């Protein structure tokens, strides 16, 4: 693979952001197909391909998903705010009025309601009945492929896990989409919202330096050994 192509891939990765505000414009089928095709080619243990995708454009269904997400996130964040945790997390926002607005946006659950506005929601679920090595890992790889493909075409996307993280919420999500609710049948890992971005978020986002993340040869060894 040529060096410039490798650079292109890194550019797609580093410029991708989670987009939660969308224009109402529809996502063309051919673009959607590319996103799903990208998911299909994700790495998967033993080539089991446990992933299944439910593409939702219907407004009423997206409204129900948005409501579920709002209550799911909001119920946790309301408690975190009442315990003082949220205020610590957002203490970096110096403007008090702005901080209060951001906090309310979070603990009200509005932060997670955007499925209502995104033209497409793709539920990512995994079958537990046909053999698999570890379903969440395979599905996560598929989601990353989807987000990168969407971004490379100018679309925005967001990986949404929180609203289906609690067992009872995951069951409600399954009921909305008609997914069998047995714990041994399908696992809901997340949904991905897709649409044309209506926000321009700064990038690259703040990230830890590689020196903080990488060890050489053994855990804890931060000094890079000399080779050659």
């Amino acid at each position, binding site marked *: 693979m040529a060096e410039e192509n490798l650079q292109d891939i890194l550019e797609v990765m580093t410029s991708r952001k989670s987009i939660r505000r969308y224009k109402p414009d529809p996502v063309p089928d051919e673009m959607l197909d590319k996103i799903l095709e990208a998911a299909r080619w994700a790495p998967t243990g033993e080539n089991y391909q446990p992933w299944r995708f439910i593409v939702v454009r219907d407004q009423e269904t997206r409204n129900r998903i948005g409501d579920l997400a*709002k209550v799911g996130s909001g*119920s946790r964040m309301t*408690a975190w705010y*009442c*315990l003082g945790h949220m205020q610590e997390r957002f203490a970096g926002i110096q403007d008090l009025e702005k901080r209060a607005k951001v906090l309310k946006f979070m*603990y*009200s659950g509005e932060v997670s309601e955007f499925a209502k506005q995104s033209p497409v929601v793709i539920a990512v679920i995994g079958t537990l009945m046909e053999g698999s090595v570890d379903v969440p890992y395979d599905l996560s790889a598929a989601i990353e492929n989807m987000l990168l493909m969407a971004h490379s075409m100018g679309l925005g996307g967001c990986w949404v896990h929180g609203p289906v993280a609690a*067992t*009872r919420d995951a069951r409600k999500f399954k009921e909305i989409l008609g997914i069998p609710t047995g714990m041994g049948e399908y696992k809901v890992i997340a949904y991905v919202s897709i649409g044309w971005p209506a926000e321009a978020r700064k990038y690259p986002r703040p990230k830890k330096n590689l020196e903080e993340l990488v060890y050489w040869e053994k855990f804890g060894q931060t000094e890079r050994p000399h080779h050659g």
Partner: protein
Amino acid sequence: MDRNAMLNEMLFRMEEVFWHELSDCAPWKTEYVGIDFIQSQDIKGANEQEVIASCIERIKAAGLAEEVDFTISGKGILLKLRVRGCKLMLKETLLRKSGIKPYSCPIANMIRDQLIEKLGYETTYLADLAADEASGACALKVAIYATPEKVGEVSDWSKE
């Protein structure tokens, strides 16, 4: 054989591996643990005070805990539970020894389940579980939301 110790050791191992797999999400995944017992007890009550009191009565009668006290404050969202003499305290001790803060309480799960099942509460969330192995008591803060509109009604729980 101490059957209660064996039960606690098995639960500890399950919770230990759950934490290893899921970290902060582990409590969210274990909210059904304990509900089978309480669902078999025909809990009745016209409001949250009666439902919770009924749950506690059955929990104590079954010998799961010696004392369970509760209060509701914080705009009706904060359910504080104090559990003494719980049969599952050993698993919390074992978790703490393995470096994991206790995160799942079947007794709280039972009460949360019945608020949803019997009174149609929108959702609940175990916000804090402080297990004190030395005194043999747990102090819990559970967020209970009767309706979706209750989400976002904040207050300062340190003053409650």
